[in-house]
């Protein structure tokens, strides 16, 4: 039973992690909270669903929707953040413009797909189960976990070992110094938005597949949790976000199983509060507010 619950927590945590790393990446690089991240998360799920509905194979639909999500991220930066950046608008104004962008995207999605919850075509998903001892795991859940872990691995590799990763880290550490050293700031920021939004989109599609449910509210449901995760992990820390996400998944699952299902969110947020009291910078945060 404990093993099954831990497995439930891992599957939950994997998608939280994928959502949170994009969220925290933008924070790490730009020092802004992109509250439109959840809207892109939702839009990508709808795009994948529509493509699958048109008969596009699921793998291809997934890939195309990732590209759409990434491009939406770039567009978001161009429209909502870049003009403010040029005017040195600080960190609160972009927060508001990201809320505005989120509301617009919600409105567009409502206009295109309507207000109702949607599902992937029933034949598109595997319902196979795998039994290991007393553990029951859906094959689909395993595939989703594998994709989430792979994407996290790719991000970690890109950040650590590629020229792009070095540029991103340089911009995150000190934008002016990076510019002086010849890093193309705007290009790096655009690519950061592309990667972060594609990851957020991947999370949206995967969670949509996992529960076979895509709705306008799906972004709002995960947004607060994502924010809590990245603060818990240490703002801007990708590793911290991943660990925070799995921690939240585990705490949620275990509190339902062993304490009280009615107080699930209260317990999860209570645990995070305790950790932050003990470590105000978050698990992996180097400073109170910013670390790359």
């Amino acid at each position: 039973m404990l093993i099954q619950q831990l497995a439930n927590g891992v599957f939950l945590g994997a998608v939280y992690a994928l959502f949170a790393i994009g969220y925290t990446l933008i924070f790490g690089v730009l020092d802004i909270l992109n509250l439109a991240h959840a809207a892109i998360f939702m839009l990508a799920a709808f795009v994948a669903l529509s493509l699958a509905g048109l008969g596009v194979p699921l793998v291809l639909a997934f890939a195309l929707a990732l590209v759409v999500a990434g491009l939406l991220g770039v567009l978001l930066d161009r429209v909502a953040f870049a003009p403010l950046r040029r005017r040195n608008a600080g960190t609160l104004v972009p927060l508001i413009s990201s809320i505005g962008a989120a509301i617009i995207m919600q409105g567009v999605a409502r206009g295109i797909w309507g207000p109702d919850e949607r599902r992937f075509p029933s034949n598109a998903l595997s319902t196979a189960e795998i039994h290991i001892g007393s553990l029951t795991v859906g094959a689909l859940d395993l595939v989703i976990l594998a994709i989430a872990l792979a994407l996290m691995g790719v991000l970690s590799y890109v950040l650590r070992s590629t020229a792009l990763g070095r540029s991103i880290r340089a911009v995150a550490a000190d934008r002016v110094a990076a510019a002086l050293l010849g890093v193309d700031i705007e290009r790096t920021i655009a690519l950061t938005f592309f990667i972060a939004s594609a990851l957020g989109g991947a999370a949206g599609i995967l969670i949509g597949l996992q529960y076979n449910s895509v709705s306008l509210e799906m972004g709002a449901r995960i947004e607060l949790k994502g924010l809590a995760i990245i603060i818990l992990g240490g703002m801007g820390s990708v590793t911290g976000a991943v660990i925070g996400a799995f921690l939240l998944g585990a705490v949620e699952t275990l509190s339902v199983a062993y304490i009280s299902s009615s107080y699930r969110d209260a317990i999860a947020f209570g645990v995070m509060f305790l950790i932050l009291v003990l470590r105000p910078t978050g698990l992996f945060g180097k400073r109170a507010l910013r670390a790359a």
Partner: protein
Amino acid sequence: MRVKSVFYAALLMVFASSVAYGAGGPMSGKTIKVGVIADVTGSAGAYGTSQKNAYELAGDDLKAGLIDVGGATLTFDFQDSATDPAQVVNLVQKFTTDGSALMIGPTLSSEAKKADPIAVGKNLTILATSNTAQGITTMGSCVFRDSLSEEQVVPQMLVKMEKAWKVRTAAIIYGDDDQFTKTDFDIFSASLKADNIDVVDIKTFHKGDVDFKAQLTAIGEKKPDLIVIGALIEEAVKIATQAKQLGFKGHLTGGNGLNSPKFIELAGPAGDGVIVGAAYYLGDTRGGNKAFVERYTKKFGKPPDQFAAQAYAAAQVVAAAIRGGATNSGQFCSFFGNMKPLMTVLGPVSFMSSRDVRADSAILEVSKGAFVPFK
């Protein structure tokens, strides 16, 4: 100019007399507007859409003379409340001031609890068609419902299941932030207790949740014979699906939220074997139900569900009241209170002194993608 106005006056007279002649009947010339509130969009949209369809069909049938209103003009002012309690309140306020003789709706019990007192305060009679929670009709002396309450259906359902399967233990999973699903919980736990069925676990969830595996894993560990699902349709589908995924072998049952063809459509094979207590059975042949099912299916491309049938039955009840001379709120209230059993698509319907409906219940099982009577 003069010639012209005489001509128009003559034309008007001819027109007026032809209307009066064409309409005929004891109530001719009377115009009655009924305000209808339903959640066509939002999370309860599946229920409200069925209700909308029913009033559309009723409108057609009024025009075609298939529903007799004694020559009166009956219109349903149908409004979508979008599963938004604030919107429901606004609409109720509209209906208390725009000359509506009766209000039908809203869709959810939780909405009714917020909105009905406003109508009651303005002496507007209410006929609810899908509020099955406790404490609906007690809000006012003119609040009626044609929907069987779950308190009436659930005990009969449990007796049947116990007989068929020797159910000894049960677990309940329900939404603790919704009036409708909380009522499910209250009624099922009281009925289970009355039947000496041991409740081995109780788990809750919140509106909009998509992951129920933690709850279901904990419940599965206790190996209950039966899991009771107190949920609206979207959550109910996911609970049934995830319970099967986690290998639960016992039986599943639930309240009114599961009783819609949409549940079968969305749950697919995971819905098979689920038992629901219902106020309506599609295969019923009384009260014009057969023709209702045919016309509804032809118009909307799918058969009516309980919510559509209860809404259509409300139209039949309203028509009977108008034939009985009711044109305003007070007259509707007293007609409903004294109504003899009226044959509707739900079977014979009348109102008890509690203003709850007196009607038959059906215990149904999901089998190969359809509801069939449970034996």
